[in-house]
């Protein structure tokens, strides 16, 4: 279950974040959290579904790599859209979750949100992307 949620308001906008343990059972909580924030921000339902998929893939990708620390999902409300940042860290387990997935999760996120990027360093991995308020209909 979620370890905690925080709200922060600053000049750049409002950021809401949620930290979950690196546990597959917690990924659904992240989807619900992201959808709730996005719906409150007035995002169209189609984009909310894309956001749910992208945050789910980002968290699952972190868990796939064997992260044992927490995963933090932050959504920042900006004038043009919602900036999403999924940060994972901690030590790597000896055995990772089985690699069932023939589809690259990060490529899928990029297919949904082309500006998606990843950064890695100092034991942390970050996936960032922006969900624009207007749908660009990529199907």
């Amino acid at each position, binding site marked *: 279950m979620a370890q905690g949620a925080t709200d922060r308001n600053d000049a750049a906008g409002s950021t809401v974040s949620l930290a979950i343990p690196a546990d*597959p*059972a917690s*990924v*659904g909580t992240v*989807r619900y959290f992201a959808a709730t924030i996005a719906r409150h921000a007035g995002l169209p339902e189609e984009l909310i*579904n*894309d956001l*749910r*998929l992208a945050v*789910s*893939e980002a*968290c*699952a990708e972190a*868990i*796939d790599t064997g992260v044992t620390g927490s995963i933090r999902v932050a959504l920042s409300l900006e004038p043009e859209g919602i900036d999403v940042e999924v940060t994972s860290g901690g030590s790597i387990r000896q055995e990772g*979750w089985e690699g*069932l*997935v*023939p*589809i690259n*999760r990060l490529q*899928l996120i990029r*297919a*949904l949100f082309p500006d998606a990027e990843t950064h890695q360093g100092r034991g942390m991995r970050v996936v960032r992307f922006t969900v624009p308020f207007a749908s660009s209909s*990529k*199907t």
Partner: protein
Amino acid sequence: MDLVLGSRNENGWAVLEVQGEVDLYTSSQLRDAILRLTEEAENRIVVDLNNVSFMDSSGLGVLVAGLKRARERGGELALVFGEGSVQKVIGITGLDKIFPTHRSVGEATGGA
């Protein structure tokens, strides 16, 4: 957040109904259900995703593995889904070109 899974036979096909969200946590339940069908020599499988409200690439990976397994045994694995998030993720990954896809179970089994 378990999946609800049920199977039945229809026109010589094993129809696997799936209800719920298929993700990293629940996809093993779908995998076990497909494996069970193939172990029972049910190699013509229709997976009905009409009541799946969410699916990520964990679920897609299970479906691809199931398709491979069914075809290795001379069978087939077809998908049934309507418009929505499942259709989108299957389309965006190009898997709609790999799986036989249908709008209804009847269409998939040749009964409609």
